[in-house]
């Protein structure tokens, strides 16, 4: 039996500056005894069933949050849940009949099952009021095939693409083109990692309007954010 870890839920606002409001909250996790830089490795070490447990806990929290405050929530979903047949089936079964809007974010850093398998699952998740987002867009070579072959509703532009944007005019032009292309494909965007006003001004001029980052909001424990009573999840690491 592995070590038992307590997982604490945090939330960070995703802000729509045109609407002047928080459009969503992304749930983030912190784990007792695991340094922030090691979180990725920690979650990668979990079994598909443990990852599914975290997602289902967060779906429940998202449902409570949406009912209480009217703000939809966004949850990081490990690709391994879709790779495993049993957890894939259970995820769909547990969400059947769900009418509370929620976003599932999938990253392009880890392997994903073939698009022929995943796109129908995305279709079924949409029937359960789940919006599908591609996280970390623009990082790593895998991003090319993931974005091209898989059917996402939202593209989350990674922070690496906006680094130094205020002082790099050529990069800004390309980012503007990327914004137009995302819109032409009928997808929504979120720019991640916004941490200064200069970048916000440039990105707004380029057509971006939905942002996440320290400039607007630092992640806060969900309990403080909402006043909801949230018991930490307990997971055994592999």
């Amino acid at each position, binding site marked *: 039996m592995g070590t038992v870890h307590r997982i604490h839920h945090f939330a960070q606002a995703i802000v729509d500056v045109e609407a002047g409001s928080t459009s969503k909250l992304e749930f983030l996790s912190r784990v007792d005894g695991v340094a922030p830089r090691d979180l990725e490795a920690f979650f990668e070490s979990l079994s598909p069933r443990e990852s599914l447990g975290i997602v289902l806990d967060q779906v429940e929290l998202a449902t409570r949050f949406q009912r209480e405050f009217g703000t939809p929530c966004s949850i990081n979903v490990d690709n391994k849940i879709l790779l495993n047949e049993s957890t894939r089936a259970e995820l769909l079964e547990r969400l059947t009949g769900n009418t509370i809007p929620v976003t599932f974010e999938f990253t392009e850093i880890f392997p994903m099952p073939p698009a022929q398998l995943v796109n129908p699952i995305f279709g079924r998740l949409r029937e359960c009021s789940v919006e599908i987002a591609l996280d970390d867009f623009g990082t*790593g070579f895998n*991003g090319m095939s993931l974005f091209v072959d898989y059917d996402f509703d939202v593209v989350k532009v990674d922070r690496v693409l906006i680094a130094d944007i205020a002082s790099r005019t050529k990069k800004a032009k390309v980012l503007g083109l990327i914004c137009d292309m995302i819109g032409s494909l009928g997808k929504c965007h979120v720019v991640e990692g916004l941490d200064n006003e200069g970048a916000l001004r440039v990105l707004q001029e380029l057509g971006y309007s939905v942002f996440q980052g320290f400039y607007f909001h630092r992640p806060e424990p969900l309990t403080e954010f909402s006043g909801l009573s949230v018991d930490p999840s307990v997971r055994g690491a592999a």
Partner: protein
Amino acid sequence: MSYPKPHDEAARLAALSDLSILDTRPERPFDLITEMARDIFDVPMVAISLVAEHRQWFKSIVGVCATETPREHAFCNYTITAEADFEVLDATTDPRFVDNPLVTGAPHIVYYCGVPITAKGRRIGALCILDRKSRPALDEVQRRVLNGMAEQAGREIEGRRVLRQALATLATSMDANLMQ
């Protein structure tokens, strides 16, 4: 139920797979085409049908509540193998379709006219208009219009694929710090 298969079936299926369009969400450009076809031809049902190995899947459909059917039931099998447009004026008297479940049961197809949708040089599916009653054959102008709409659907499928590739390439190039 037997149906004709195109001579280039393997290459056609490979092209369809490469386009990554099967099982994707509804998209407005395709819904516009089916809605316009419904209004222009005054038919109750229109579909953009993509013919996969074992099923036909509808990228857009109006007038019928379905996302796919078994391939063996697909009228569009004949369209993607025909020399030109494929039209059936009364399926209830056509021996190829008289026992077809889409004729004997919902949605009770009687009239069908389909034109191929071509992308990556292959007939990946068809734009088809359908009715629950028999209709006269389309005239030349109507055929041109329907063919034009099918061509537009094919260009849209190809264009969106290219756009996704270009966007992914651009973003990846930026990550690699090629954009100083």
